[in-house]
């Protein structure tokens, strides 16, 4: 079967991985358009480009799209594509589940966007607090679409997570013990376990919300004995691990890229792996920091504040590790490396603003202001998306057999960095000045107009940079220089397969004796495993 049919019926992990990435790209552009509509509306005070109800739909759809239809799927896609290659396997353990998970996720996205066609897109924010999300206050069908779509997407997520866990557990090449796996594999494994433990909390919340809305149940209806706060607890029990779920695989990518372009193995592999486990466990114990403003009692808040500050420690460990890897190395600034280094800086800024929120009084001042918006975009865009851009530039040759254009890459890099920081850095100040989030317009207070305009201009530059990146990808697919199997002189197993890999990844499964099997192969006189 060739052509479209082959792609629709694909169960080969490489094809499904690319399907995930394409789907994520489409939704990324949709979410980006939603963002630009918002930024246009906010460019000056008291604008009336769109109605307030439309604005609410924009921020809800933007957030929901970016987290559930872009970040999670694209990271899953990279995982599904790369994991078998990195562990020396020819396929995922459960290929049909692989495809099913993708299609579930896509169908969920289609269902969500279908709501636009009915005129009632969801509009209660991406975390839809009760009682706003109850039928009484949101009578349209928008939130029903939201909940049902998310249930489908969650199902797909859990399916792919289970698949990745089983694959990593059972299909590693001979000699590749769990102590020798590439860090991207390790982080994907930890993330997948986190998904298994966190997504059901979302599912429970959504089931409860749908019961309330469609079957007149009383979970969140205070007047009838329910508790709106229960939604917040249950959602954030999912929500906090979720933000680590969308960032840990990105960490994994960075951990592959920085060593190769520093020509040094990663510094402190055991600490990198252990700190990942620490982050995974701790992330389930800090959810209350999203609820500091809800009057839960001082002692309670203090304990969660302490735990939230603690979680910065293992994350900081990783930053040190990456920097230490670069230290003294022969650094080569390819576009992938540029994005990786930018990631370090941007994510650190985002992490610092996050830790600021762990201090309860600061949170009371800053919550629901643009300071939060700045924080989340620094960690999610400056973090996850930058890492993804690095990852695309790094693995594109493997996936397509062609190199991306370096000159276009650099242009897009600088435009994206300029645009991103212009758009979001000023939002820290807007938040400190008191501008609340999720408002469709604002009064003409000192600095509000100017800073918002700067932010909008930054967003426009960012869009341009992204489009340039897309153009680079499109052009290079057809006209890029032919890449060999191993254009970067890298060390992990995926570079031993062809570019792009054949249907059967490896003609013979290699035997692995260290963390850098290709280094061993290229340097038989000084292999990694020969070191005492």
């Amino acid at each position, binding site marked *: 079967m060739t052509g479209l049919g082959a792609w629709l019926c694909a169960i080969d992990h490489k094809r499904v991985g690319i399907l995930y990435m394409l789907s994520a790209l489409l939704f990324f552009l949709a979410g980006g358009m939603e963002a630009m509509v918002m930024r246009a509306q906010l460019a000056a005070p008291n604008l009336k480009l769109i109605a307030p109800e439309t604005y609410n739909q924009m921020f809800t759809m933007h957030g929901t799209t970016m987290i559930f239809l872009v970040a999670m799927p694209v990271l899953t896609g990279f995982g599904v594509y790369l994991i078998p290659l990195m562990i020396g396997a020819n396929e995922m353990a459960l290929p049909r589940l692989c495809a099913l998970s993708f299609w579930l996720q896509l169908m969920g996205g289609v269902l969500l966007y279908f709501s636009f066609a009915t005129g009632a897109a969801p509009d209660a924010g991406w975390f839809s607090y009760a009682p706003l999300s109850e039928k009484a206050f949101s009578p349209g069908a928008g939130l029903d679409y939201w909940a049902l779509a998310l249930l489908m997407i969650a199902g797909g997520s859990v399916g792919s997570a289970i698949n990745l866990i089983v694959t990593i557990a059972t299909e590693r090449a001979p000699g590749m013990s769990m102590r020798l796996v590439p860090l991207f594999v390790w982080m994907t494994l930890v993330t997948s376990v986190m998904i298994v433990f966190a997504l059901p909390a979302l599912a429970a919340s959504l089931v409860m919300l749908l019961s309330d809305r469609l*079957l007149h149940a009383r*979970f969140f209806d205070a007047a009838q004995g329910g508790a709106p706060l229960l939604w917040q607890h249950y959602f954030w029990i999912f929500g906090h691990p979720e933000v680590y779920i969308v960032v840990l695989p990105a960490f994994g990518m960075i951990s592959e890229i920085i060593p190769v372009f520093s020509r040094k193995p990663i510094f402190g592999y055991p600490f990198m792996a252990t700190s990942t486990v620490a982050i995974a466990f701790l992330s389930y114990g800090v959810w209350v920091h999203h609820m500091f403003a809800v009057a839960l009692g001082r002692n309670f808040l203090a304990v969660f504040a302490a735990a939230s500050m603690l979680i910065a420690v293992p994350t900081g460990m990783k930053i040190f590790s990456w920097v230490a890897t670069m230290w003294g190395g022969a650094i080569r600034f390819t576009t992938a490396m540029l994005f990786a280094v930018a990631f370090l800086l941007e994510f650190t800024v985002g992490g610092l603003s996050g830790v600021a929120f762990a201090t309860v009084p600061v949170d009371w001042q800053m919550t629901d202001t643009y300071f939060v918006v700045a924080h989340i975009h620094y960690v999610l865009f400056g973090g996850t998306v930058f890492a993804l851009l690095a990852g695309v530039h790094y693995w594109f040759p493997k996936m397509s057999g062609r190199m991306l254009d370096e000159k276009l890459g650099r242009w897009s890099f600088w435009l994206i960095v300029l645009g991103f920081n212009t758009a979001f850095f000023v939002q820290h100040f807007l938040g400190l000045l008191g501008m609340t989030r999720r408002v469709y317009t604002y009064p003409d207070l000192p600095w509000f107009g100017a800073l918002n305009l700067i932010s909008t201009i930054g967003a426009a530059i960012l869009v341009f940079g992204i489009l340039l990146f897309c153009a680079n990808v499109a052009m290079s697919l057809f006209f890029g220089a032919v890449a060999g199997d191993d254009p970067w002189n890298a060390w992990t197993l995926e570079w031993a397969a062809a570019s792009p890999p054949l249907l059967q990844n490896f003609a013979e499964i290699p035997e692995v004796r260290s963390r850098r099997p290709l280094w061993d192969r290229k340097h038989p006189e000084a292999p990694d495993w020969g070191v005492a």
Partner: protein
Amino acid sequence: MAMFLIAETVFFFLLILAFVYFRGTAKLSLEAGGIDTALLLASSLSMWRAASSGTGGSRPWLAVTLLLGAAFLIGQGIQYLHLIRDGVTLSQGAFGTTFFTLTGMHGLHVLAGLIALAIAPAPALRSMALYWYFFTAVWLAIFLVAYVWSAA
């Protein structure tokens, strides 16, 4: 299957927690609940026999499991009817909401399990058995929390 069941554990744990949190009050029939529990336990036993016998011998035990499982669901349905007749519905308040959602979700999973058992090919039997034991265990937890502990 084990990984999937871990996910389900979290899901049902949260639903049970909601039930406990609201600590609703209503009279649940211990006898009816007890009979249902016995039915499901018996069906797990027959499931175990089905899974441990060879390809030929599993058929009759599977049939027994399906029958017992169906009887469980019917028992649930009858209880639901009685409760609704007494005015305890999904909208009745915290108890109705949490009880019906919890047992309803469990019942849906049992139904799905019955359908899957009816059409599953032989190699899947071991996984399905695990699924079945798990939902028997979830029912035990529900029974203890909703029937026994609430009655006290």
